[in-house]
């Protein structure tokens, strides 16, 4: 079963519209109430008064929820800086109260009727404003190795720069959704589109003033998560649970796209200042940088996101002397959060941008500059973790150079560009090295529950959630392989906190590593107990017993046919204050080469060909893994080229409002952005010792293969100019590319 390409376990349900998501379940509940928020029209304002009475005049309004209704703690986060019902609006669109109605229309009209008295306060919207005002929050970590002064002294060329780049909206197709019901004896049952059911459970419990065992959270499946449902669902689930508690009826909170985009956190935008030194051979000697992330109004996951950014600023490169300082800006925007890569992409973008900009200054082709600085076996990251399997980086790089026919295409592109004044092609190859495991060591644990029924059928349950990444598909394959059964014998039950407790978020690409190992552990416990039964049966019948017979006999012999599996990742260490240790079980590697064609009149471009070699260890499920690689890559291309979050930064009446708050104004890649020619290969001979069946995590790392597209655009833009370095904004929209061409044409002519 392992290593076999299988469609997604729910594929037949997906395509026939029968796969149920949280809100599909909600709509089937009788007596359902609908919730609508009352939101702040200012980026920052004090709530002087909130009068719910007019809402009750709206037909169909059942209840207005305010801070006074909270029986427990009025907070939706784990840092106690996210009041569920705030007395100070901290961003444009911040929910101040919620209205429950018999219909969504009634709730909407009721919300509009609630009278809110606000005193507008000064706001900080941009990173530049936050830095100028020294508006920061949370920890300010520093990652340091060697002595940067010494490194710069040993450098023959030193460059400095500044780079601010945008965040990204998750735009999971399914917006945030929760539905809560009160069951027998006050047990609160919440179904929620959440990547972290345990934390949703904990926050619902503390808002309601209940113990965890009084709250059950279930996640059937999500219509996409990408990190956006790791911390952000909790408050919405708490609203549903509070509403259900107060009314005794099921309550549904389902955000519209506009509400989701204006209320929920996104990928952090960053600002970076940097100074880098190279020796005569183009080897990096020193990097001194300050990274400031745009955290939004509360901390959320900004601290670990920043840690990961710092731990990935090296990407694939050996930097002997390094100092990187990190800060989290506090701005009056949504609270930025986890998003596929979790700060890693932002850290890596800084170094890839530096290399792309400096290569022409150094007179070295960017691909040569990159390869020359690769880690080699025996070297360690700036935080002290040995870079195991560094040779895979070089192997993948060479494989891409070979299969993409890189050198010949470089020549062909140069010839094309010489002939065409208005259309230039660009080519680039970039690497990815991404650390796998939660930085915070304690999160690297998982549980599973495997039941074998008397008829031999198997039901598995584990702590991970399914958001499209194929985790459940892989878990079925792991269980079938471990038990030696056809996959049809194994079924998977929805993720619930009353089945497997104390789970970690399905995040950090670790879902399969952690839960797979736990499922395997449970299966192996059962098999171990079956050994004597098998022996007895074999002796009695002098034949290998069939599975149903074996199970039946085990039951009759009173052998326990279910097991709880557990896994903890060994060998991890991390000192968050010193930023030292070996936080990662291993590194995932990948390399991509991309070619683009750019129109000089408009800056519009096409990605014409992409070649990828990616390291997933021994693939558990190649169809799933290739899907993750391609999907991650395209999502990364969206972040770097197309997706353009714009806030109103004016002093006007809508200051702080997200200007791109709908699908018509925020554009994610469509079919038209798909590379015309996309070739993905899995790195061979890549068994990962110590991970489940030799496989590797695949969720996040491929996103960063998209740097190849950004660098190819830079290469094409340069062809319009005269060999000067190219500054490219991020996202590199057609407009940004046009201005880069404009600058290239006028520089150094």
């Amino acid at each position: 079963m392992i290593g076999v390409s299988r469609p997604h376990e729910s594929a037949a349900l997906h395509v026939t519209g029968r796969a149920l998501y949280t809100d599909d379940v909600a709509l089937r509940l009788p007596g359902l109430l609908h919730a609508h928020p009352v939101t702040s029209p200012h980026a920052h304002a004090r709530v002087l008064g909130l009068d719910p009475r007019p809402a009750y005049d709206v037909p169909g309004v059942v209840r207005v929820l305010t801070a006074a209704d909270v029986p427990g703690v009025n907070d939706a986060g784990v840092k106690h800086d996210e009041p569920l019902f705030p007395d100070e609006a901290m961003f444009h669109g911040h929910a101040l109260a919620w209205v429950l109605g018999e219909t969504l229309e009634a709730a909407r009209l009721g919300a509009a009727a609630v009278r809110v008295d606000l005193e507008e306060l000064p706001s900080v919207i941009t990173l530049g404003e936050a830095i100028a005002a020294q508006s920061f929050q949370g920890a300010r970590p520093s990652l340091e190795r060697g002595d940067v002064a010494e490194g710069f002294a040993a450098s023959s060329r030193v460059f400095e720069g500044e780079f601010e780049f945008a965040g990204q909206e998750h735009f999971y197709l399914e917006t945030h959704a929760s539905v809560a019901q009160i069951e027998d004896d006050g047990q609160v049952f919440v179904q929620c589109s959440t990547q972290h059911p345990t934390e949703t459970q904990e926050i619902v419990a503390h808002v309601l003033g209940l113990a965890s065992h009084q709250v059950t959270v279930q996640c059937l499946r999500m219509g996409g998560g990408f990190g956006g449902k790791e911390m952000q669902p909790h408050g919405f689930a708490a609203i549903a649970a509070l509403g259900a508690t107060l009314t005794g009826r099921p309550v549904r909170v389902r955000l519209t796209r506009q509400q989701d985009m204006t209320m929920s956190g996104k990928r952090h935008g960053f600002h970076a200042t940097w100074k880098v030194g190279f020796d005569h051979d183009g080897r990096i000697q020193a990097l001194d940088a300050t990274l400031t992330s745009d955290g939004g109004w509360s901390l959320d996951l900004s601290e670990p996101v920043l840690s990961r950014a710092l731990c990935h600023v090296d990407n694939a490169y050996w930097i002997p002397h390094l100092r990187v300082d990190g800060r989290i800006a506090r701005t009056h925007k949504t609270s930025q959060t986890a998003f596929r890569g979790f700060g890693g992409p932002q850290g890596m973008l800084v170094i890839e941008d530096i290399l792309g900009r400096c290569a022409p200054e150094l007179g070295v082709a960017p691909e040569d500059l990159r390869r020359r600085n690769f880690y080699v076996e025996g070297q360690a990251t700036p935080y002290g973790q040995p870079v195991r399997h560094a040779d895979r980086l070089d192997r993948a790089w060479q494989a891409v150079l070979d299969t993409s026919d890189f050198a010949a295409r470089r020549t062909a592109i140069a010839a094309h560009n010489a002939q065409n004044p208005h259309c230039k092609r660009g080519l680039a190859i970039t690497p990815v090295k991404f650390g796998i495991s939660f930085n915070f060591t304690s999160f690297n644990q998982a549980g599973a529950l495997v039941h074998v029924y008397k008829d031999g059928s198997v039901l598995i349950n584990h702590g991970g959630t399914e958001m499209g990444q194929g985790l459940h598909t892989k878990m079925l394959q792991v269980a079938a392989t471990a038990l030696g059964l056809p996959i049809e014998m194994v079924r998977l039950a929805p993720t619930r906190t009353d089945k497997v407790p104390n789970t970690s978020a399905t995040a950090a690409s670790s879902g399969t590593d952690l839960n797979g190992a736990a499922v395997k552990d449970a299966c192996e416990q059962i098999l171990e107990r079956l050994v004597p039964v098998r022996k007895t049966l074999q002796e009695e019948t002098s034949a290998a017993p069939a599975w149903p017979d074996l199970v039946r006999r085990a039951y009759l012999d009173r052998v326990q046919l279910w097991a709880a599996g557990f896994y903890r990742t060994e060998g991890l260490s991390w000192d968050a204050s010193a930023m030292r240790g070996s936080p990662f079980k291993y590194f995932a590697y990948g390399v991509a080469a991309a070619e683009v064609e750019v129109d000089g009149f408009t800056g519009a471009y096409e990605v014409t060909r992409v070649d990828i070699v990616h390291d997933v260890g021994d693939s558990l499920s190649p169809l799933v893994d290739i899907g993750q690689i391609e999907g991650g890559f395209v999502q990364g291309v969206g972040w770097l080229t197309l997706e353009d979050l714009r806030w109103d930064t004016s002093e006007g009446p809508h200051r702080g409002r997200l200007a791109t708050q709908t699908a018509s104004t925020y554009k994610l890649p469509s079919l038209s952005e798909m590379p015309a020619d996309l070739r993905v290969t899995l790195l061979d001979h890549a068994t990962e010792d110590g991970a489940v069946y030799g496989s590797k995590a695949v969720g996040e790392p491929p996103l960063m293969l998209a740097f190849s597209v950004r660098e190819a655009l830079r290469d094409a833009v340069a062809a319009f100019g005269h060999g000067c370095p190219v500054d490219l904004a991020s996202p590199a929209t057609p407009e940004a590319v046009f201005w880069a061409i404009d600058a290239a044409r006028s520089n150094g002519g």
Partner: protein
Amino acid sequence: MSTDDVVTVNGTPRSLAAARPESNALDWLRAIGLTGAKEGCAEGECGACSVLLARPGIEAETEWVALNSCLLPAASLAGQEVVTSEGLGTPADLHPVQSELAVRGGSQCGYCTPGFVCSMAAEFYRPGREDFDHHALSGNLCRCTGYRPIVEAAEALGAPDQADPLLRRTTSAAPAASPTRAEGWIRPAHLAEALEALAEPGAVAVAGSTDLGVEANLRGHRPALRVAIDRLDELRGLVVGEESVQIGAALTLSEVERLLAGRVPLLAEVFPQFASRLIRNGATIGGNLGTGSPIGDLAPALLALDASVVLVSAEGERTVVLADYFTGYRQSVRRSDELIALVRIPRPLAPDVAFHKIAKRRFDDISSVAVAHAIEVREGTVSRAAIGLGGVAATPIRASEAERLLVGASWSPEGVAAAADALADAGTPIDDHRASAAYRRAMLGQSLRRLVASS
């Protein structure tokens, strides 16, 4: 059940009685337990709500048309036939489209999938289809896969089986648009009745509802009475004559595209760039002009074609040159009791045409700038020039100064330079989230140079 509120969904009659006046088709389908179609954006941008409707066909009696159900008023379904992803197949008996998507990894989270299935099925059944037209999926967004397996599934599709019930359905007449009435809704029998209804206070005309539907979903717009005009025969003719091309206002953009079949080359350039197939299947040519959007892609092209609109009311008809039609942001000379009956494009058409759409994304994006050129070059000199612009002022406009400088100029980079500079100064572009004013001006300035370079 009266015939007024019966919809055939997946072959089964269902009552619209539970639909609320503000309900769209998606809300209603989901409320009756058909939760396959999803709401991803509520403005016709993502296609997760795509369903199939049986509509009168062009190359067959009936064609299966994919539409965004989030934009359709539920009341508009009365008497119609709808097929959703649930009706196409079951897990045990998948439809060919469903099967190809499933086995090729075309679904990951699965949330967009039912919509892709319906859009793909509409193309699967398109009469005369040879290859799979990728534009059929231009209105569907997927955040997980990167699209490659979805495209491969589409390309792997063969022809429908002759016994396929949905194929067989295409050989008999589509459901008629019988007159219906519901709370806040009327589908009149004739144009005269429509005009009468429009005279009621708060009445608005609704055709494809691709604009009103967005207003309803995102901004809570609740007109007192919606008057459905999309199926009125009087508004659905298309005549290509010696003197002019006349296009009925209630023809959808997809229908116009197919009926014209390239006979108005400038429009043929616009259609594939106009929103998405899902939107073009609903949006009408009259509706596009009726909303008066300054960035609608059709208006710049029709301006460049010197088009006129014929307005009709109970008092009679009048013809207005399109250049005089728009009076301000989303405002026009059309009175609230008037309807656009048809669009008239004079012939002969200028031979050298181009439509330059500047946007962030190539499929299904709103233009930051749109430039439509209708030019004639004789022996190297411009003899005729009309340029329509969108996105650079409160209304679509003609670039009169650039046109004036262009006529008589030699068709070369140097020859058009003065006109190109004048074009860059046309309108009053603004900075917004789509583009900066500077970029919009630059794109205007590049447009003629680009056209010369490519000719």
